[in-house]
């Protein structure tokens, strides 16, 4: 938080602010010094906030028309699509909104990976982010179950059965999750409850995520520590507000394209068939945003080890600030890391692709190689690279590479100080 005191101008404002310093908070948020070199990859935080609010508002409206009962859920969704005024629009926004949310979160995560935003002193921001990501996956999975179509039912069956891999207590846990001996009405009602709850948990964590961000301030494309406020920063309002707003508009164009032109392309046709516990669809695949992890699950021939590998692939991210031993944040100054970064991006995309394909033959082989590489990247390449890599010299400020600086570091630093 900024140290300067804020004094409201009006008498009432002062009276109120002395009792609840909301105006101080608002002032902090508007004046918040932001690195002036932030590029468009930094606009996804705002876009994600928009996605969360969109999901909460549309979800609230859908819950007014949806009936969480195994006999009525499927029909109530069709009722929303056909009878409720603009129900089709609200449901398509909500369903595609989940995909847009994940699209934005993946860009947000990979931006952090490129610019080293997870490194000290921002580990807590990063870990809260990973928890938000986990909750997003839980919410998306449970939300996908609610229409009670074939993919809902069998997706729920397969994912809850992952817990049966746990030795001894696994079967008991699965029965407990189901509230019965198979996925059925008790499962649906509890998934609805949790699907309703989780977005508000995410909202709370987003507040913590931003709070933790505002302690050290934003990382930036150069990845160096900067003085705040200084000539390396601009106030959040209006500079970043306008930039985030413009990026959000571009993002909404993509969002609207899916909602209005191909609202079902990211879903599965089988989910328009009502759940049938006697028939499994021929080809079960999760939503696209879970495919890389699904590929990792299937690439391991043992049930328990497959589940462990899949969960490790997510939890390994939480340890990233300590696995990456390099002191240099931004990949701009890490010529080797930059290449491994793009190999990782390709690796995750390949995992996503093979996750959608049948687990056999060449696809299985590719999935196994890609899974091995994924863990190799985090467990071997990153720790070793921090010691071996010859990094490029860092500029002493954001302004320096643009306006030129003295070759004499001490003199340049001195000059930076004088211009405060």
């Amino acid at each position: 938080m900024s140290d300067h005191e804020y004094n409201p101008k009006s008498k009432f404002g002062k009276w109120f602010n002395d009792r609840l310093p909301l105006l101080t908070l608002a002032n902090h948020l508007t004046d918040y010094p932001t690195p002036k070199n932030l590029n468009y990859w930094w606009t996804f935080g705002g876009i994600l906030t928009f996605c969360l609010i969109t999901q909460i508002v549309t979800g609230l409206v859908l819950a007014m028309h949806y009936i969480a009962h195994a006999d009525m859920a499927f029909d109530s969704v069709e009722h929303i699509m056909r009878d409720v005024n603009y129900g089709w629009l609200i449901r398509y926004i909500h369903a595609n909104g989940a995909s847009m949310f994940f699209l934005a979160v993946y860009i947000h995560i990979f931006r952090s990976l490129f610019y080293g935003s997870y490194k000290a002193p921002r580990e807590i921001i990063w870990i809260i982010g990973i928890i938000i990501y986990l909750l997003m996956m839980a919410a998306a999975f449970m939300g996908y179950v609610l229409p009670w179509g074939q993919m809902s039912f069998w997706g729920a069956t397969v994912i809850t059965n992952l817990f049966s891999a746990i030795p001894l207590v696994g079967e008991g846990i699965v029965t407990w999750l189901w509230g019965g001996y198979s996925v059925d009405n008790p499962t649906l009602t509890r998934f609805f409850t949790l699907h309703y709850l989780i977005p508000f948990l995410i909202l709370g964590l987003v507040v913590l995520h931003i709070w933790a961000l505002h302690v050290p301030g934003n990382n930036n494309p150069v990845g160096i520590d900067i003085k705040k406020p200084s000539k390396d920063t601009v106030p959040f309002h209006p500079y970043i507000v306008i930039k985030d707003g413009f990026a959000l508009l571009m993002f909404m164009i993509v969002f609207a394209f899916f909602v209005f032109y191909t609202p079902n392309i990211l879903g599965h046709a089988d989910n328009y068939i009502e759940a049938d516990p006697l028939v499994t669809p021929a080809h079960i695949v999760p939503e696209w945003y879970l495919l890389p992890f699904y590929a990792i699950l299937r690439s391991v021939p043992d049930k328990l080890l497959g589940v462990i590998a899949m969960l490790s692939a997510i939890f390994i991210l939480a340890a990233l600030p300590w696995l990456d031993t390099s002191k240099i944040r931004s990949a701009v100054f890490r010529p080797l890391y930059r290449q491994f970064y793009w190999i990782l991006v390709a690796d995750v995309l390949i995992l996503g692709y093979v996750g959608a394909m049948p687990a056999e033959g060449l696809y299985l082989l590719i999935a196994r190689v890609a899974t091995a590489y994924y863990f190799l990247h985090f467990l071997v390449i990153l720790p070793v690279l921090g010691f071996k890599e010859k990094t490029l010299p860092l500029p002493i400020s954001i302004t320096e590479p643009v306006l030129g600086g003295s070759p004499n570091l001490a003199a340049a630093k001195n000059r930076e100080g004088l211009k405060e």
Partner: protein
Amino acid sequence: MAEKKTNRRDFLFTATYAVGAVGAGAVVWPMIDQMNPDASVKALASTEVDVSSVGPGKTITVLWRGKPVFIRRRTDKEIEEARSVKLEDLKHPEKDEDRAQNPEWLVMLGVCTHLGCVPLDQKGDYNGWFCPCHGSHYDTSGRIRKGPAPTNMEIPKYEFVNANTIKIG
């Protein structure tokens, strides 16, 4: 600091924590256990099925506890195949004699032991069942022969009430 002596107050703290923990447990347990199968779910725990119309080589699927149960009237060839397999060749060794009380009738949960999909009848490399989800192959006794499933398909508790009726559960 002086050597710490246990006194009456320490006893009071420990006793208070212990009672508090029991109280917390007594509150938490109902909140957890309410998610387990309720009385109405458990009440549906057994089903009687008339199998008089099932001819040799035919399978019927009935719903028991929300799960499919395969009731297959096996042909002599299938019984022969199931009984001639060496136990060493099985991933989860079980004799067919232990799985089918009456060799002609195989009654088992139609649930793949990998992740719970319903396998397809008369498919796969062993003429038994094949799970389309992740490619597990089962033989004519419902035993896992190839693929990721760890165990054979489960045999529920069942009995022949009379020659034409099976009671499952």
